[in-house]
């Protein structure tokens, strides 16, 4: 146990802190695993996928404030069904990708970084949960709500950007 702790500490010290990958993987969930340099125009496919995703968000009323209220008041199964079935499909897909060592269409081997636990997942998770029940939206739905015509949500989005910035500014002083 002691030895393990020692190893962990020394390995922590050795960790480079300022390389690009370290900074990116430190916190962001969307670490871009791809090391290929792609032209900007190759990003259009993600835009198309986003459009499809936004339509699903609006049509399944996942972005509806009322549906989120119903979820937290246990008045409707809808959101639990959406998230639950999405996770089941996700688990099966990731398992298949790992099993067959699938490659992306650009030929890269697909690689998933494991998540490191830190206390932020508890404190930050609770704070986000409080905000989620107020705005009725997590970050994705904010974009869809604006697109669907709730223009005042632009203010909510800017405020969320400000929240992210304040976290980045003071993260050293927060327990992790």
């Amino acid at each position, binding site marked *: 146990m002691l030895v393990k702790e020692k190893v962990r500490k020394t390995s922590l010290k050795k960790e480079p802190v300022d390389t690009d990958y370290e900074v990116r993987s430190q916190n962001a969930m969307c670490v871009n695993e791809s090391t290929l340099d792609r032209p900007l125009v190759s990003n259009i496919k993600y*835009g198309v996928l986003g459009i499809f995703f936004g339509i699903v968000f609006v049509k399944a009323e996942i972005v509806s404030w009322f549906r989120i209220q119903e979820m937290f008041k246990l008045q409707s199964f809808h959101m639990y069904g959406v998230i639950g079935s999405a996770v089941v499909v996700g688990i099966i897909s990731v398992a298949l990708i790992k099993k067959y060592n699938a490659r992306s269409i650009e030929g890269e081997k697909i690689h998933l970084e494991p998540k490191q636990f830190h206390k932020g997942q508890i404190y930050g998770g609770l704070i986000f949960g409080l905000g989620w029940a107020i705005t009725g939206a997590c970050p994705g739905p904010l974009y869809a709500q604006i697109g669907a015509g709730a223009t005042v949500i632009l203010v909510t989005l800017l405020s969320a950007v400000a929240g992210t910035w304040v976290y980045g500014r003071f993260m050293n002083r927060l327990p992790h």
Partner: protein
Amino acid sequence: MLEWLKQPWPWYVAGPLIGLTVPALLLLGNKTFGISSSLRHICAICIPAKIPFFRYDWKKETWNLFFVGGILLGGIVAAQWLANPAPVLVHPQLAEELAAYGVTDYNGIVPRDLFSWQELFTLRGFILIVVGGFMVGFGTRYAGGCTSGHAIMGLSNLQWPSLVATCCFMIGGFVMTWLILPHILQL
């Protein structure tokens, strides 16, 4: 067909479609699903202010901004061409409770009696629109992900820290809905 698409989609259609976004992003370009990171990229682009957390090569992450831009466009498409003309159907008990706070308009994706440009300048509207948004941005980054990054992507990859985060999202949501939000709505 179009008539059918205009109806609200059931969970067993929407959920699997959202789940398929995980392998779609991985197969398209080795990208892991996550949306709250886009907020960080916006900070990195617009106001990095020499903060280490925002000093990285955001140009490598532009795919994420294309993705969220697409979500916004998808919202426009759904509202313009696939809109269901009927108001949102909500649980009668919720409707009754909300009526007590003056929420009676069910035509919008967000309740217009609470989220509008006029409401923004009231104390209640400010808390709902500005403070709520701040907590979403601060909390997701502190937790290292949101519903997409942790609850869907993290759980799909069987990551236990993501399960902890997801449970905390839900606890926070229940506390707000049951204990705090009634006081805010009364303002």
